[in-house]
C-alpha cells in the first residue's frame, strides 16, 4: 500500500446529496473508499471555516455538495452557500489555498450514480495533485508543538 490514497471529506446536505449517496448504496454502485461524509441539514449551514479546518486536520481534498439550484429543501440555502463560496474561493486563492482541491457540485436524491462519479473523479484528481503536505505542515498542531 505504498500508493497514495488521498483523504477526502465531503460536506453534504441531508436532503439531496446525503440521500443521493444513500441511493448509490441501495443501487450497489461502487466507488472509492477514500471519502468521509459529513452530514449537514443544508449546504447553507456549511461554515467555510470548516473547510480550512478539514485541510488543517489532514484532508487532501474536499467535496461540497447539495441540492441543485431551485431544488433546495429549504428554498434558498444552496444559493447562499454558492454565493459565499464565490467569495470564499477568492479569499482562498489570495491566501494561497489550492482551490483545485475543493469540488463544488449538486447531487440530487435521485442521482446515485452521479455521486459515485463525483467521488471517483475527485479521488483521481487529488491523486494527481498528491498529498496536501504544504498545508498540513502549516496546521495548528505543528505551530503549537
Amino acid at each position, binding site marked *: 500500500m505504498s500508493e497514495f490514497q488521498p483523504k477526502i471529506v465531503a460536506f453534504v446536505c441531508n436532503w439531496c446529496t446525503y440521500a443521493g449517496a444513500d441511493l448509490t448504496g441501495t443501487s450497489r454502485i461502487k466507488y472509492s473508499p477514500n471519502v468521509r461524509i459529513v452530514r*449537514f441539514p443544508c449546504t447553507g449551514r*456549511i461554515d467555510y471555516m470548516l473547510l480550512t479546518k478539514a485541510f488543517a486536520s489532514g*484532508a487532501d481534498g474536499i467535496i461540497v455538495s447539495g441540492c441543485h439550484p431551485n431544488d433546495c429543501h429549504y428554498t434558498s*440555502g444552496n444559493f447562499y452557500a454558492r454565493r459565499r463560496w464565490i467569495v470564499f474561493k477568492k479569499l482562498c486563492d489570495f491566501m494561497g489555498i489550492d482551490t483545485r482541491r475543493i469540488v463544488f457540485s449538486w447531487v440530487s436524491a435521485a442521482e446515485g450514480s452521479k455521486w459515485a462519479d463525483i467521488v471517483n473523479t475527485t479521488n483521481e484528481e487529488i491523486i494527481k495533485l498528491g498529498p496536501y503536505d504544504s498545508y498540513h505542515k502549516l496546521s495548528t498542531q505543528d505551530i503549537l508543538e
Partner: protein
Amino acid sequence: MARIGVFICHCGENISATVDCPKVSEVAAKFPGVAYSVDYKYMCSDPGQSLVVNAIKEHKLTGIVVSACSPRMHEPTFRRACAEAGLNPYLCEMANIREHCSWVHEKGDRTDQKAIDVVRMMVEKVKRNNALMSIKVPVTKTALVIGGGVAGIQAALDIANAGHKVVMVEREPSIGGHMSQLSETFPTLDCSQCILTPRMVEVAQNPNITLYTYAEVESVEGFVGNFNVKIRKKAKSIDETLCNGCGMCTTKCPQKKIPNEFELGMGNRPAIYVPFPQAVPNVPVIDRLNCTYYKNGKCKICEKFCQPKAIRFDQEDEIIEVAVGAISICTGFDVKKTDFFPEYGYGKHKDIIDGLQFERMASASGPTLGAIRRPSDGAEPKKIVFVACAGSRDPAKGIEYCSKICCMYTAKHAILYKHKVHDGTAYIFYMDIRAAGKNYDEFTRRAIEEDNAQYIRGRVSSIYERDGKLIVIGTDTLMNHETVEIEADMVVLATAGVANQGAEELAQKLHVSYDQHRFFSEAHPKLKPVETNTAGIYLAGACQSPKDIPESVAAASGVAGKISCLFSSSELTREPLIAFVDRIAAPDYSSCTGCFLCQPVCPYNAIEKEDIKDRAGNLIKSLAYINPGLCQGCGTCVAICKSKSIDIDGYTNQQMYSEVDALLNS
C-alpha cells in the same frame, strides 16, 4: 465524563460481508469516552434493541452511536430505544456504514478503516449532543389535493369521508384527468366515463370538499401541519354562482374552429366552452386568447344569450389563501406527441396518431362517435399498425424507463379495433409484452387468441407515405431479424408517458425532490412509496412514474390513510433541531451584535428582533431572536453570522468541528 456506547450492526451479511464488524467494535472500544462497544447481527430487531436498552441502563451510558444503516432509515427506531432506557432520544447518532460503506466499497483494509473513521467521528459528535425536547405544533386538519385526475379524486374522497376538510385545485376547467378521455379500460373493458363520472360528481357534492378548477397553486409556505397556500383561481369570465350550466353561450359563440384540447385536436370547440359534456363543474370558461371580444373588443354574443346573466368580461384572477395541514400531489402525467419522432415523420402524417387520440376515436362521445376513421380522409382503416414502446426504453431518446401502461392499452386498442372493424387486421410491433398484473396476461392473450392481433417482436425503424398508404418498416426478431414491411392505412404510436408539464415548477414551489425525468420522487422506493422527503407532503398516481388506474387509486387511498393518521391528533411532534441565538448575562446579554445579516437569509422569516430594555424602558440593545415555531433548521443563519452568535441544535459548531477533527486525526 462521557460514557458512550457503540453498537455495530452486521445487518445480516449486508454489512459484515464487507466490513469486519468485530474488529470495528474492538477498535471503537478504545476510543476516548467509549464505555461499551458491541457488534450484533441485527441491531434493529427486537433482541438488538433490547441489547441497546439494557446496555444504556447497565453501563449508565450518556450517549450512543449505532453504526448501521442510514439514519434516514432507522434513526427513529434507536431514538425510541434510548427513550425506553431513560436516555434523552437526541443523545443518539448513527454512523452510516451500510449505504455509505459496505454497499459501495470492496472488502478490504481501506473499507474497514473507513468504517472505523465514521464511527470515531460520530462518537466525537455525540459527546457534544444536547438533550433536547421535541417541539409540539398544532395541526390544521384540512388537506390540499393538487390535481383532479382519478388519483386526486380518490384521495380527496377518502380524506373527506374520514371526516376531514379537503381543498382540491385543478388546473383545467374540469376535473377528471386522463381517465375522462379514455374509451374503455383494461383489463375489464368497462367504460371509463361510466365509472369515473359518478366519482367526479361525488367530489363536487361532498360538503367536506372545496373544489377550485381552472386554478393553480401560486405559492406554499410553512411546514407539516401548518402550510399556508396561495391558490390562483384564473378568471373564467363567468360568475359561477349564477351560471346554471344551460350551455346556451357555447352554442351561440361565433368562434367555432378552435382545436379542442380534450379531443387532442381531432375536433373543434368555441371560445366559451366546457371541455366535455360530463365536466365537473359544468360551468364554461372563456378562452381569452381566442375570444373575439378579448381580441377585437366586439362581440359579447354569449352575454346576450346568457339568461342568468353570468358572463363577466371584467373578471380578474383571484388569489385565495388557505391553511392546510397536509398536501397530496396528484398532478398526473402526459404522453409524448407524434412530433417527437423524426423516424415516424415528425407528426406530419395525419394518419399517424398517438394512443390517447385513439382513445378519443374509440370513445362513443369522441369526435367520430366511436368509429375508427383515418383522420386524413375519414375512411375506415383495414390495416392498422400499433407501435408499442414508441420512445420508451430508448436511451437514445432520453427515456430509458418502461412507460408500463402501453403494453396493456395497446392490447386493448387491438381488441377495440377488432370489435369495430371486423374485417380489419391489427399488427403490433413490440419489444416484450409486459402484462404483469391481475388478469393482465389473460387480457393480452385474449387480444392474440380471440381478436387475432398480429404481434411482431421488433422495432419499427421508419414510417413513410406512399400512394395514400403508410409504409411501416420494421424487423421481426423472432424470424431471423427479417425486415417486415406493412402497407398500413393508419398507425397508432404508444408514445412514452412523461412527467406532466409544470411538474418541475410545482416541485420547486413545494420543495420536494424529483428525478431526472421530472417525475416526483418518493421518500423511499419501497417503504415510503407515497411520502415525499418533505414531511406532510405526499404523492399519488402517475405524477410519480407512469401508472395505470388501479395503481393510481391504490396509491391515492394510501395517501388518504397517511393524511388521516396525521390528522388523528390535534398536535404533532417536530424535531427540535432548530437554531438559537446565544444569551449571556448582562451587560452583554448576547454575543449578537444586532447586525441582522441573518434576517434576510432565513427562508421562513423566523428571525425577529428582540429589544432588551432597562427598567425605565430605555433600549439597551437589539438582538436577533429565532422563533422556534417558524425555524425549520436549515442553518443558513448559523453560517452567515459573523460573530458566531447563532448555533443550531443537532449540528452545532462544536459538533461539526469535532466531527471533522475526529475524521482525519486517526
